[in-house]
């Protein structure tokens, strides 16, 4: 009896000291090892008189539990302390730079094409394409611009042969012709792409981008045209209200034709779209000329509709505050980084066109 008490008191005292893991383990062995003090006491159990055995066992177990608990919590404390000390030594300067990475960018023209496609997708347009090299017929004649038409002078054309039969398309309108020759009405398409004119100065580049729009169906009139463009401009510039002006104009392939201006003002040196008293021309449009429809064998007594052509580069400049058209094609590393878009910024209807 006194043995148990003695062991208990002695070891409680020992365990109060500042011990390391080895010392604690030694104590553990001393007590609970094969020949440990507590283990030895258990071996005595059989020799103790039956009436005292129960009490002895109970006392012994309670001492064993108490000591074991203290030891295990002691071990735990020491381990935590040691880990903490180890971690402390491993500390790095976390402000050092991360592993290097490079961010790629999407060209603003590509981004704007995706924005435009996303907007027109919502109202049922699909995307068509056509070749950059066109024949004279698709680029001009089929579009009601015969050879002797002065409107041809408005297009400074790059030619690929001396007979002037092969050329770089001067607008995306030949895609209208190709689409209508290939399929049957109704048509509801946009056609973004490269266009070319031999013109080069601060505001003109020999290559630029247009998006063509064509909607031909049974009763498509100028009200639909106005509605479509009004919707597009609002969505594109991400504004609720837009000042838009339809102005009569002339294109050989549409009639009646219009040019569309949007209202803007200059605020703090930056252009603000949708407000103000100034007008900026952004696109040309009109009802597809019956001669064009006849050229592509569309029955004009049944079908009619509108077409439009928008300068993509110009839209990109307006929306993103880019001053110089030429810079689009200069591939300057700094410019591309500045005006480019992260590839994960995919314009879409549900997450919005831009951030």
């Amino acid at each position, binding site marked *: 009896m006194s043995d148990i008490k003695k062991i208990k008191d002695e070891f409680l005292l020992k365990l109060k000291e500042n011990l390391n893991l080895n010392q604690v383990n030694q104590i553990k062995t001393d007590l609970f090892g094969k020949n440990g003090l507590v283990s030895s006491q258990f071996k005595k159990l059989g020799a103790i008189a039956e009436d005292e055995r129960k009490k002895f066992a109970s006392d012994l177990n309670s001492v064993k539990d108490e000591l074991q608990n203290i030891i295990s919590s002691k071990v735990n404390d020491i381990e935590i302390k040691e880990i903490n000390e180890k971690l402390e030594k491993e500390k790095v300067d976390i402000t*050092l*730079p991360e*592993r*290097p*990475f490079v961010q*790629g*960018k*999407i*060209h603003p023209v*590509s981004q704007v094409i*995706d924005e435009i496609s996303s907007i*027109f*997708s919502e*109202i*049922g*347009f699909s*995307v068509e*394409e056509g*070749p950059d*090299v066109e*024949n004279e017929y698709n680029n001009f004649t089929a579009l009601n611009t015969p050879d*002797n038409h*002065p409107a041809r*002078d408005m297009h400074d054309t*790059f*030619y*690929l042969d*001396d007979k*002037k039969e*092969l050329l770089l398309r001067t607008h995306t309108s030949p895609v209208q012709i190709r689409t209508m020759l290939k399929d049957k009405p109704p048509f*509801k398409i946009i056609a973004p792409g*490269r266009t070319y004119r*031999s013109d*080069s100065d601060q505001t003109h580049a*020999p*290559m630029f981008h247009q998006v063509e729009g064509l909607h031909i169906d049974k009763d498509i*009139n*100028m*009200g*639909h045209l*106005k*509605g479509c463009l009004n*919707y597009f401009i609002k969505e594109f510039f991400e504004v609720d209200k837009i000042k838009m*002006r*339809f*102005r*009569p104009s*002339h294109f050989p392939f549409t*009639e*009646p034709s219009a040019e569309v201006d949007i209202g803007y003002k200059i605020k703090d040196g930056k252009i603000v779209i949708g407000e103000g008293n100034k007008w900026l021309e952004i696109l040309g449009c009109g*009802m597809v000329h019956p001669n064009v429809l006849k050229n592509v064998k569309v029955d004009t007594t049944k079908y009619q509709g509108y077409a439009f052509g928008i300068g993509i580069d110009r839209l990109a400049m307006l929306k993103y505050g880019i001053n110089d058209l030429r810079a689009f*094609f*200069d*591939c*300057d*590393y700094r410019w*591309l980084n500045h005006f*480019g878009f992260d*590839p994960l910024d*995919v314009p879409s209807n549900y997450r919005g066109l831009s951030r």
Partner: protein
Amino acid sequence: MKITTNWLKDHLDTKLNENQIIDKLTDIGLEVESADIQSSELDSFLVAKIVKTEKHPGADRLKVCDVDIGIKNSVKVVCGAPNAREGLLTIYAPPGATIPKNQMKLVVSKIRGVTSYGMLCSESELNLSNESDGITELLSEKYDAKIGKNYFPKSNLKVIDISITPNRADCLGIRGIARDLSAAGSGKLKNIKSEKLTQKNKQKINIKIIKEKNQGCAIFGSCLITGVKNTESPNWLKEKIISLGQKPISAIVDVTNYIMFDLNRPLHAYDADKIDRGIIVRNSKKGETFKALDNKNYKLDNDMCVITDNSGILGLGGIIGGTRSGTELDTKNVLIEAAYFSPKSIRKTSKVLNIDTDAKFRFERGIDPLSIELGLQRAAELIKKICGGEVSKFDIQNFEKIKNNSIKFDPLLFEKITGFKIDQKEMTKILNGLGFEVKKEKKIMALKVPSWRSDIEQEIDIIEELVRIHGYNKIQIVEPEKSRDKPTLNNKQKLFHFLQRSIASKGFLETITWSFTDSKINQLFIENNKEIKIVNPISSDLNVLRNSIFSNLIIYLNKNLDRGFKDVSLFEIGPTFSGSQPGQQETVASGLRSGKISRLSWLEKDRLVDVFDVKKDVIQSLVEAGFSQNKLYIDDKTPSYYHPGKSGRVFLSKDKEKVIAFFGEIHPNILKKIDIKTESLVGFEIFLDNIKQTKKSLNNQKTQYQYSDFQKSERDFAFVIDKNFQVQELIEIIYDVDKNLIKRVRVFDIYEGANIPEDKKSIALNVVIQSSKKTLKDEDLDRINQVIISKVEEKTGAKIRS
């Protein structure tokens, strides 16, 4: 087309002010491009007062005057006029001013050693009168308070520049613009007042239009005015000519120009005495030459419409006159021509000869064929009034009749096209205003198109007129329906957009470069393609269509290297061309990487970009786009612009159907030729058109989900194998041992050198083996190992390294 509101009011009775007129013009499709107050050379002449005169120290007849020009200090002007005296009010021209009479521009100059700032002007120098005997004397009671002010009242008349669309030839004259405004309710079109001419004599010069094929002249009207005294134009006429930015020449020329701008009726004036026995209008013959009024000699082709006499060519009809028969100040007898030339012929000739004149611009767009007599009438009136003379009867030679168009117009069509209604009364009013004759025939309107509107041919043209004049703002918006019948993008377009962003996400900057390039650079990448020349390139270094995107990409990469950037990754996705026919183009995504990876990183050791970087770019992009990596097949046959030992091509499968990509180091010779200084340059080309679309959409690309929870084992092998043996094949052999059990093969080491024969290499592979049915026992694994080793050894001649 330039107009002033003053001139416009010759034809239009309107209550609108200038700004309202400008707005209205734009509203009806006559777009005002600018409206600016015309600056005049007379703006700088000031009222001045001589405050002091002194004798010039070096010249007896000159005086040095102190002149008060309304600023703090007077200016010194050297003056030779005898009437220059103290207290005189006169007109001062500062340095920079141009003297109207002799067009001399003043500068600060020393006159016999004394600096003179400007000049005091005589009336003659200012074209005010012929008085040249002294400087202008102004009355002090009238001008005393005006010292320092402009002598000439400043014109605040705006010159309105209108962009006339090619269909509106009729608006190339001020009357046409007035007519449009009046039709739009902005005023009343005035009648042209003409005076009665006494025309006693016949026009004596014989005019003949030769009947031949492709005769470009349909009507030739003429009038002879004899006994004229050509002179300077009167002020009203000069002002009109000047207000449009033209230069007055002489009364006869100014009158013809005035009528052209006023009525859109080009005329030509000949000195009748220089015409050799009559006028013959005929087609030119190849090789004929003549000297035109622009002082250039033109060599003509066949079938150009020329106005000739018996000595040769007088002019190109409707385009430009010749020097031989032009009017001069001493011209006594003048022949006025008013003709109609076919737009087609004018256009053809002027294109070939590259001549652009006001007359050509108008004839090419279509002149009113019925304006000939009116033009002759107005010209004769004015010339007679200004220059005197006898006017002959008009001679009109008709070669061809020009018919007025008539159109049957269904008024219901208006609403069908525009989406809104206007009543027939309004329609009639608009059309009448524009000069149409309107007759109602049951439900149809029978229209006679005015002779000046050759652009109006069919019903849709009428609708345009109606809606344009009625107002585009009346068109009601119809909100678009948000529905979609067809997918927005097809598979090819989806792949385009996917690869574009996939490549960019690997650190590439997307560029857009010209579709044309420098033929010298293009040659380096042309391979077996043929060069596609642009006939009229914008510059000599953009003279061919690109056969490869690399040409431009490498030019612009080099520019960035010159800017001091070293580690540059650029790409472009766009067309390359294989021929000059439509469709001979393909879509290629092409990228270049230069320099190093991890340059100046404290963490990573830097290294040059290499072929396996671009291989990763290509393979990863393809895998991301949905192609199975295991099926991709690589070989080493590449175009000559790649490093022959460090480049490859990619196929979608072992069938090697179409090359879908090249990748590799750019050939060092290319870098040398283009003079690029970079540590390393690698690139790739992905040919989108060659990529066979996976027919599966995303939802059925996902096959049934199968996995195995049975234990997997990994085994390492090292084979000693021929140096040239390709790892791709070795891996395939291993997979082929048992496709169900061998899940993955990875290459973790390649070794050449000590302990390995010179023509061999050692390849170390890790193979993952797992069954989906059971846990493999040791003996199963041993058996597979043995099969792997024996198959590899048997098929490749390799030896397992022990």
